[in-house]
C-alpha cells in the first residue's frame, strides 16, 4: 500500500450514504434550537423595557452564568439566542461528531467490516480520514444550517455566521477528541465513553470558570471558546483559531497513534474477565443485570449530578423570574417560583429518563439483531421471561433515574435554603413515571409486533421534547400540545394534583405491555 489515503473518497461516500438519514436528523434537530429560540424572542420580550430588564437581571446573576455562561447583549434577539443556546448546540454538535467518528472507525474495526475493506485497496490512514471527513461534513452542514436559518429569521448575518462557525468548530474539536479516543480504546463503546467524558469535563470547566472568580478556567475549555466568541456581540473571530488549532493538534496525535498501533488494538489493552461466572449470572434476569447495570449507574449518577447542579441555583433563579416582567406577565404573582422552577426541571428529568428507558429497551432489539437471542432462546428460557428481563430494567431503571435526578435537585435547593421540601420533589418525580412508562410501553409494543419499527421510540421522545419545550413558545394549538404525554402529568411541586391522567396513562401503558408480550411470543425471531 503505497498511498496512505487510497480509497478515501469511496469510504466517505459509503459513510455518507449509510448515515444520510441519521445525520440529516441531527443537523436539522440542532439547527432547530437556535432558529426557534430566535423566532420566539419577540413574543417573549415584546417591549424595549422587557429587554432592558431582562439584561439587567440576568447579566449579574452567577446562577445563569453557571448554567449558560455570562449573559450579554440580551436586548437583541441574536444576542439572547446565542447566550441561551450556543452551549447546548455545541454539546449536541460534539456528540454528533463523536458518534460519527467512532461509528466509522473503531466500531467498524471491531466488527470486522474494516478488515474486509482493508484487504482491498485502502490506505492505512484512509479509515480515520474518512471517519473524520464524514463528521466534518456533518459539522459544516450544521454550521451552515444554523447560519442560514438565523439569517432567514432576520438575524444579523455577521452574528449568524459567527454562531454557525463556532458550533461547527466545536464539533470539529470533538471529532478530533474522538479520533484520539478510538486509537486509545480497543472498542467503540470505550471510545464513546472517553469522548463523552471529555465533553462533560469541558462543560464543568466552562461552568466553573464563568460562575467563579477564576474566569480564566473557562478559557481552558473548548466549550468556553464557543461561548467566548460572543456571537451577535463582540464577534471575537480569533477564538475560532483556538478551536481550529486544537482540532489540528488532536488529528495530528490521532494520526501518529494510528502509525504506532496494530490493527484491532488500542492503547488500553482489552482486559480479561473471570473464567467462571458468579452465581448471580444465571437466568435471564442475571444476564439483564450484567447488560444494564453500567448504563443505569452512569445515567443515575449523571442525572443526580445535573440535578444537584440545577438545584443549587434554584433559589437565585426563582427570585430572578419572580421579579422579571416575564414572570409577572406569564405566571402572575403569588407563586412559589422555586417550586415552578423545580417542576420544570423535573419535567425535563422525566424526558431524559425516557431517553435512558428507550436505550435500555432497544438493548433487547440489539440482542435480537446481533443474534444472541437465538442462542438464549434455544435453551429452556421462555420468550416472555427474556423480554420481561429487559422491560424490568427499562421501566424500573427509568423510574430510578427520574427520582434520583429530581431528588438531587431538591436536596441542593434545600441546602441552599430554598422554600421546598424533598418530599415534594420526590412525589413530583414519581408523578412523571406513568408518562415515561407510557412511551416505553409504546416502544415495547412496536418491538413486539413490528420489531423493525422499534427505533421509532426515538422519534416519539424527540417529538415529545420539541412539543414540551418549544410548543408553548411557538404557540402550538392545544391539540398539538396534548400529543405529548408529559403535557398531562401534574406539574409538581406546586401544581395541582389530578390523579386521573396518571391512572389513564398507567392503564394504557399496562395494555401496551401486554400487546408487547403477546406480539413477541407470536412473531418470528429476526436477525
Amino acid at each position, binding site marked *: 500500500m503505497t498511498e496512505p489515503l487510497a480509497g478515501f473518497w469511496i469510504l466517505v461516500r459509503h459513510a455518507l450514504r449509510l448515515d444520510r438519514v441519521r445525520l440529516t436528523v441531527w443537523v436539522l434537530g440542532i439547527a432547530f434550537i437556535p432558529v426557534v429560540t430566535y423566532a420566539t424572542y419577540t413574543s417573549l420580550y415584546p417591549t424595549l423595557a422587557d429587554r432592558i430588564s431582562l439584561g439587567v437581571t440576568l447579566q449579574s446573576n452567577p446562577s445563569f452564568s453557571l448554567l449558560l455562561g455570562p449573559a450579554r447583549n440580551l436586548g437583541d434577539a441574536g444576542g439572547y439566542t446565542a447566550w441561551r443556546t450556543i452551549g447546548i448546540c455545541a454539546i449536541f454538535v460534539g456528540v454528533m461528531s463523536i458518534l460519527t467518528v467512532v461509528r466509522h472507525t473503531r466500531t467498524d474495526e471491531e466488527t470486522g467490516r474494516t478488515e474486509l475493506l482493508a484487504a482491498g485497496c485502502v490506505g492505512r490512514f484512509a479509515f480515520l480520514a474518512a471517519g473524520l471527513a464524514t463528521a466534518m461534513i456533518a459539522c459544516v452542514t450544521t454550521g451552515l444550517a444554523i447560519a442560514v436559518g438565523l439569517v432567514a429569521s432576520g438575524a444579523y448575518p455577521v452574528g449568524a455566521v459567527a454562531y454557525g462557525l463556532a458550533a461547527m468548530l466545536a464539533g470539529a474539536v470533538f471529532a478530533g477528541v474522538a479520533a484520539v479516543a478510538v486509537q486509545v480504546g480497543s472498542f467503540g463503546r470505550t471510545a464513546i465513553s472517553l469522548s463523552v467524558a471529555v465533553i462533560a469535563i469541558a462543560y464543568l470547566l466552562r461552568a466553573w470558570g464563568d460562575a467563579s472568580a477564576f474566569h480564566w478556567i473557562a478559557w481552558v475549555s473548548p466549550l468556553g471558546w464557543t461561548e467566548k466568541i460572543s456571537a451577535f456581540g463582540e464577534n471575537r473571530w480569533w477564538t475560532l483559531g483556538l478551536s481550529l488549532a486544537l482540532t489540528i493538534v488532536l488529528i495530528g496525535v490521532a494520526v501518529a497513534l494510528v502509525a504506532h498501533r496494530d490493527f484491532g488494538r488500542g492503547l488500553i489493552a482489552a482486559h480479561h*474477565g473471570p473464567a467462571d461466572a458468579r452465581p448471580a449470572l444465571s437466568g435471564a434476569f442475571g444476564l439483564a443485570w450484567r447488560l444494564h447495570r453500567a448504563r443505569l449507574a452512569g445515567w443515575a449518577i449523571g442525572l443526580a449530578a445535573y440535578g444537584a447542579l440545577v438545584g443549587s441555583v434554584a433559589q437565585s433563579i426563582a427570585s430572578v423570574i419572580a421579579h422579571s416582567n416575564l414572570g409577572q406577565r406569564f405566571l402572575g404573582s403569588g407563586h412559589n417560583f422555586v417550586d415552578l422552577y423545580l417542576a420544570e426541571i423535573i419535567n425535563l428529568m422525566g424526558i431524559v429518563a425516557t431517553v435512558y428507558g428507550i436505550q435500555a429497551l432497544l438493548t433487547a432489539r440489539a440482542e435480537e439483531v446481533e*443474534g444472541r437471542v437465538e442462542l438464549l432462546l434455544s435453551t429452556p428460557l421462555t420468550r416472555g421471561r427474556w423480554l420481561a428481563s429487559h422491560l424490568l430494567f427499562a421501566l424500573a431503571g427509568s423510574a430510578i433515574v427520574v427520582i434520583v435526578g429530581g431528588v438531587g435537585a431538591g436536596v441542593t435547593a434545600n441546602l441552599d435554603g430554598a422554600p421546598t421540601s424533598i418530599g415534594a420533589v420526590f412525589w413530583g418525580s414519581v408523578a412523571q413515571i406513568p408518562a415515561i412508562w407510557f412511551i416505553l410501553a409504546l416502544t415495547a409494543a412496536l418491538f413486539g409486533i413490528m420489531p423493525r419499527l422499534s427505533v421509532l421510540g426515538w422519534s416519539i421522545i424527540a417529538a415529545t421534547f420539541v412539543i414540551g419545550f418549544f410548543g408553548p413558545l411557538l404557540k402550538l394549538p392545544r391539540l398539538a400540545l396534548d400529543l405529548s404525554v408529559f403535557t398531562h402529568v401534574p406539574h409538581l411541586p406546586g401544581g395541582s394534583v389530578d390523579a386521573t391522567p396518571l391512572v389513564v396513562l398507567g392503564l394504557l401503558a399496562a395494555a401496551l405491555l401486554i400487546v408487547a408480550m403477546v406480539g413477541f411470543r407470536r412473531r418470528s425471531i429476526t436477525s
Partner: protein
Amino acid sequence: MDLEVATGEVHGFVGPNGSGKSTTIRILLGLLHADAGEVVLLGGDPWRDTVALHRRLAYVPGEVTLWPQLSGGEAIDLLGRLRGGFDPARKAELLARFELDPTKTGRSYSKGNRQKVALVAALASDVELLILDEPTSGLDPLMESVFQRCIEEAKAAGRTVLLSSHILSEVEALCDRVSILRQGRVVQRGTLDELRRVTRTTVVATLERMPDDLAGWPGVHGPLIHGSRVRCDVETPVLTEFMTHLTACGIVSLVTQPPTLEDLFLREYADEPS
C-alpha cells in the same frame, strides 16, 4: 422439505449457502414460524412445546455472537445454567481439549473462538439432541479433529446429532445418514452407502486387450482410452456386469474409487443455474 432424523444417529445436513439449512434449523428451534407443513421434534411441536423441547437439546448457531462484556467462561456458565446446569469438570475438560482461553471478553474472541465457546457450552450440557449449524466453519484442522472426536463420543453416549455442514469430509467421517438440501428441498437422503448406489464409481484399468465397443456399454460414462489404459465412470447397478467384461479382457492393473460425498454433491448441483 422432508427431513427425518432418527434417534441416536448423527445426521448430516448438507447444502450450499442459501439452500435453507439455517432456516430449517431455526424452525426446528421454534424461532421461526413454519408457513406450512408438519414439524415434529423429539415428539413435540417446536413452536408450541418450545420450553419442554429445549430442555432436551443444545444448539450451536452458524454465526456465534457473544456478549461483548461477558468473558467466554461466563457465557458458557450462563448457557449451561439456562440449560439446567452442567458438570464443571466436563467444562474444564472441554476447554482444555479445545485450547480455549475462557477469560477473554466476548468482543475480543475471533470467529473460531466464539464458535468454540458455543461448542463447549453445548457439549458440556447433558442433553439428548445436539443441533449444530456449521459448527466448524471457523476452526483450524487440529480443532476440527477434536470436534470430530467429541461428536463420536456424543454418539457413543447415545445422543442424536443434527450436523449442518458443507465440509463434506467432516460429514463423511461422522454421519450415519445424510440429507442433501437444495433450494429449500431435500433432494437426496439416505446412508452414505445408499447415496453411493445412485452414483458412479471411477474405474481406472490397464488391460491386455482393449474392448472396442466400450463407449456403447449401458451405464458407462466418459471412457478415456490411452494406449492400454482406460478410465471411465460406471453406474453402481452395472458394476458387476462391467467388471465381468473387464475380466474377460485380462486385467493388468485396476484402481477403483468409490464416489465421495464431494462427487454426490457436485453431481446434485452441477445442473443448478447459478
